[in-house]
């Protein structure tokens, strides 16, 4: 059972000659790799039973796989969003007054409002067909990646803490502190190009790490619940930064009475990746690096092994000789640095003209949803971050073009996470077969053990 691909190859041995055609089936690869454990369990449970036909197995795997659930979850969420857009559209409301006289008008109005909104969403996030050149048409995609940059970094921070069994709601505070430190270095010092950026980056990461480290240290030393401490530190950071922003000599721009910092110096700003006409900046490369790093930490390093052990069962980890308390501190330090990266990429990459106390832009909380959608795995978070970045970029253009409030994006995002988290619900709605019924997989008895204290 150690190699998840083993049952798939086992199935390939006994396949009939026409199976090569079946392999061309789109989506089959993803579906096969994600449901192999199910088939393995089925094989182990009933070895003597005659195997069903290849086509049946294939269809069953596609219908019960995680990939199809994810796709259907997105579709479901978009349908709900469409209903909301249609119901609140003015033209639809006008046409629905005489629905029974001319129902066609209502249908047309619904189609226009929904298709208009979703076209704007697509053109604002992936590719704009109304532009003449490819360079101008692809700009929305680079915007998506720009919006995704802090979301991925923040999601990694929240997800890493999740894996150690901690809930880091303090993304806002960690981002604010990191942004302030990086911004202060970014506008207040004169350093050569490159070095300046590096110093500001490291300063920001340290700021975020230390701010989160407070919560980790308090949890390790006194047992203070990290949920309370991180929430409280959000507010403390917000007011601290607000005060610094309106105090001359700290963060406030000289000669100004607004609570805003001066612009960052050219030497500290992240270079643009694709030239000045795009907003995509070096922060995206850093985030890709961070994703690889977190993947390496979690699945290849001994520290990551300890992290996961503590996350699975702190008591067992302690008995096994792992220092649980220091794991809490290390995990929060790394998580804070990752959220710090999100804050730094905001001030040195996205908003370089000086920032206010709203620089976090709700990313600290969005990061929680990103981490949940990505199931706290580094590459899952990476994909989820890009998806949410696309929604964010497209949502703003949808608001500008069609007048649909950008909050619809929040609804669609949260519905996607809800639906993906509950595969049985999606299966019931689309009447898909239940894999557990076919495989007779024993359900885990979660309530069997009670935490020993």
């Amino acid at each position, binding site marked *: 059972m150690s190699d998840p691909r083993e049952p798939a190859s086992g199935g390939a041995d006994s396949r009939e000659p026409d199976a090569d055609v079946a392999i061309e089936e789109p989506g089959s690869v993803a579906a096969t790799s994600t449901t192999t454990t199910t088939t393995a369990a089925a094989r182990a449970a009933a070895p003597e039973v005659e195997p069903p036909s290849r086509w049946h197995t294939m269809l069953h795997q596609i219908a019960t796989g995680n990939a199809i659930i994810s796709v259907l979850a997105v579709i479901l969420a978009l349908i709900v969003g469409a209903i*909301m857009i249609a119901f*609140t559209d003015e033209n639809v409301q006008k046409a629905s007054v005489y629905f029974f006289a001319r129902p066609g008008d209502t249908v047309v109005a619904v189609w226009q409002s929904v298709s208009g909104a979703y076209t704007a969403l697509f053109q604002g996030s992936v590719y704009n067909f109304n532009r003449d050149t490819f360079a101008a048409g692809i700009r929305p995609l680079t915007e998506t990646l720009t919006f995704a940059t802090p979301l991925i970094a923040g999601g990694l921070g929240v997800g890493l803490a999740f894996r150690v069994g901690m*809930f880091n*709601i303090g993304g806002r505070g960690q981002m604010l502190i990191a942004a302030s430190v990086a911004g202060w270095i970014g506008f207040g010092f004169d350093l050569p190009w490159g070095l300046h950026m590096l110093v500001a980056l490291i300063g920001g990461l340290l700021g975020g790490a230390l701010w989160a480290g407070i919560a980790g240290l*308090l949890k390790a*030393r*006194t*047992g*203070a*619940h990290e*949920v*309370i*401490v991180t*929430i*409280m*530190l959000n*507010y*403390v950071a917000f*007011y*601290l930064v*607000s*005060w610094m922003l309106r*105090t001359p000599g700290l963060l406030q721009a000289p000669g100004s009475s607004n609570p805003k910092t001066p612009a960052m110096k050219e030497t500290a700003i992240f270079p643009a990746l694709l030239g000045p006409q795009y907003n995509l900046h070096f922060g995206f490369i850093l985030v890709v690096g961070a994703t690889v790093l977190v993947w390496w930490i979690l699945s290849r390093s001994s520290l990551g092994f300890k992290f996961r052990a503590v996350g699975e069962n702190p008591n067992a980890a302690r008995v096994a000789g792992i220092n649980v308390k220091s794991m809490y501190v290390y995990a929060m330090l790394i998580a804070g640095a990752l959220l710090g990266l999100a804050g730094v990429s905001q001030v040195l990459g996205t908003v370089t003209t000086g920032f206010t106390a709203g620089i976090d832009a709700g990313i600290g*909380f969005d990061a*929680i*949803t990103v981490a*949940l959608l990505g199931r706290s795995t580094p590459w899952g978070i990476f994909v989820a971050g890009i998806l949410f970045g696309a929604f964010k970029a497209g949502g703003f253009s949808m608001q500008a073009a069609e007048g*649909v*409030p950008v*909050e*619809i*994006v*929040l*609804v*669609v*995002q*949260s*519905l996607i*996470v*809800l639906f993906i*988290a*509950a595969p*049985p*619900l999606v299966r019931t709605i689309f009447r898909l077969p239940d894999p557990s019924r076919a495989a007779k997989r024993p*359900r*885990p*008895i*979660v*309530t*069997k053990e*009670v*935490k020993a*204290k």
Partner: protein
Amino acid sequence: MSTTVQQTPASDVPALATTVVTSWKAPIAFAAFTLIALLLAVFAPREGETGFRLSEAKDVIQITTITTPAMPTLWVVIVLLALATAYSVFIVASKRRVPLWLIVVFAVLFMVGFLTWAAAGATIPVVGLLFGSLSLAVPLIFGSLSGVLSERVGVINIAIEGQLLAGAFTAAVVASITGQPIAGLFAAMVAGMLVSFVLAAFSIKYFVDQVIVGVVLNVLVLGLTSFFYSQVLVPNAAQLNTPPRFDRLPIPVLSEIPIIGPVLFRQTLVVYLMYVAVALVYIGLFHTKWGLRLRAVGEHPQAADTVGIKVNRTRFWNVALAGAIAGLGGTFFTIGSGIAFNKEMTAGAGFIALAAVIFGQWDPIKATFAALLFGFASNLQNTLAVIGSPVPSEFMLMLPYVVTIFAVAGLVGKVRGPAAAGKPYIKS
């Protein structure tokens, strides 16, 4: 910081060895706060006299305003604080626990000292300060009651924020349409319950991680209410978003008691409902069959199932009840204060309520006091901003949160919630 000492009693007494846990957290925290007061007195002395106004102009029984010279009072307070700290050191050194009354006395003393220092040369309206604190605490108390109920039955309720927001939105809309705040009140309970239904359905029927559902529900409700606010309420503000407010209902005799009367008994219906809710939840949870079953399901669902309690049904309906209570709290933001609904108007109150649940150790009374503490701290800042305080307003705003961190780390320490909270019950 904590040390465990094995105490063996004298040999002639046939008793078992007892384990005594001593904690130096309280004396250390006391010393820190005494030091803060001392630093204020030494490095930022303030001249003038401080007045404490104890009664409003319309009260029947008038109490004269107490006026004290600021600095001498502060020094007296510092001496008392030092004495309390020394006493706590003595208690811990003799292997006993620091009693709760000492912590309360210390906190009140520190507050008096701080207020005399901060408001030197002005008069503090004590009644107004306490009245506002109670008002600001109302949604927090409802929210924390919701959290207590839900978590005691074994479902972690992060969605308090969403329930409050849904309650605030529905109350505003329904009360505006009908013109009856009472109708808004019931609508808010239904809205909070609907949010809870989603939480319960996903976590109980589909075994989704309860924290995930809670966080996502917050985002979902935020998105829904903001969307409908921008799309529907703003264009039709006159019909849909001009909620009437509850009138204040002074209780005839009780409202004339000095200090307590104006604070507790000249409130709106929502606040009186809050008193009833706290009492009912406390009595229900610890003195009725319903509460016993609820707690059994939250602590050990398998055992509860064995004796015939329907675990998932109990969870579902109690989570729904919790949602209704939180929805009630949401009414404070709109019809409770007569304010039109606005985007994100709960502004994190649900998370503060969550902190109050944990701070109050999943006990309705303690959680209520924790919520009152938050309300007091927020209103203290408002009061000091009016009379002009030497401290930057941001630091005053920060204070409740810093105090909470200190309190959670220093006084509460490791808290243990209901054993089965967060785990779905899957009958095998």
